């Protein structure tokens, strides 16, 4: 695998769902909260990358991502900004779990580092984009649409989480 195909793993639904939910949640909050979410998410990505460097093997990262997507989606559906600590914890957890869920498959260290860097930047860009687009949705029906999206994300994540944990 090349660094590019490694980075492409971020496009898998398990990785995109928490990103979308967190982006919607951050976008629902104020401008200042948005930058804090991005910062904690970046910190989580770094911690995840360091954990991989220390050869943390087979963490239940996909389960954690689904759980985080379900929580963030529920909070978006509720439509009231949660406590900052909750949002920041979700951001940090999502970043770390995301990085752990896409370990680089590259044969050399330099390609692996490039893959992790690319994955992290792509995740940050996607989160920022969803957040900015959500902040732009100020009309009443647009805010309702965001809440409906949050509900759909939570429902999808809950169903898949149940499948993974029960069967």
């Amino acid at each position, binding site marked *: 695998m090349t660094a590019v195909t490694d980075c492409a793993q971020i496009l*898998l*639904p398990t990785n995109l769902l928490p990103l979308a939910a967190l982006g919607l949640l951050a976008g629902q909050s104020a401008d200042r909260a948005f930058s804090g979410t991005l910062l904690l998410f970046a910190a989580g990505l770094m911690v995840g990358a360091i954990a991989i460097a220390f050869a943390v093997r087979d963490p239940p990262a996909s389960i954690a991502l689904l759980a985080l997507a379900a929580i963030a989606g529920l909070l978006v559906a509720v439509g009231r900004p949660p406590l900052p600590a909750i949002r920041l914890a979700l951001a940090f957890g999502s970043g770390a779990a995301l990085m752990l869920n896409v370990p680089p498959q590259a044969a050399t260290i330099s390609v692996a580092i490039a893959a992790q860097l690319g994955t992290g930047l792509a995740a940050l860009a996607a989160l920022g984009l969803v957040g900015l687009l959500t902040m732009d949705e100020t009309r009443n029906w647009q805010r309702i649409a965001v809440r409906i*999206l949050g509900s*759909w994300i939570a429902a*999808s994540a809950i169903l898949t989480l149940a499948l993974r944990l029960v069967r």
Partner: protein
Amino acid sequence: MTRAFLALILSIVATPAFAHDIASAGGFLAGLAHPVFGLDHVIAMVAVGMWGVFLRAPALWLLPIVFPLVMAFGGVLGIAGVPLPAVETGIAASAIVLGLMVALAARPPLWVAALLVGAFAIFHGYAHGKELADDANALAFSAGFVIATGALHLTGIAFGLLARWPAGRLAVRGAGGAIALLGLAYLSGLA
């Protein structure tokens, strides 16, 4: 900006077309098709949307937010194999009751409507949850399934908005009656 937002969401829910077996493209489309091919589910979902129009805000927009979540709870019960009696009867009853509510243009208190729709959502979710398969596409399938359900609600809302005009109101209420009759046919085993 709204178009860009919609494009982004669509790109998020789409299954990436990797050449190898990271995830096959079938999951999302299969999930999308799953609720659409069960007429008993379709008519109940559309009826929820139509009833929402008669109930007006905030029920109109609360139902599409709450229904998928309660349905997911029902799905979890189905996946976990928790016994739930008379599921098919409950699904047929949902078409009868929701169809009647539309036909009568009923406007009960919000909590009564939420309780009714929530109870039926559990039956629908349970039935789908039992059929969900745990494979690499489970999430894409679930997302497709939830979006299709939401799209059926929106279809019902769009059709229900015809009730703003006298002739449209008659058509919507007539459709509600037809849904109730179909539900009765399912319950009696005629359909």
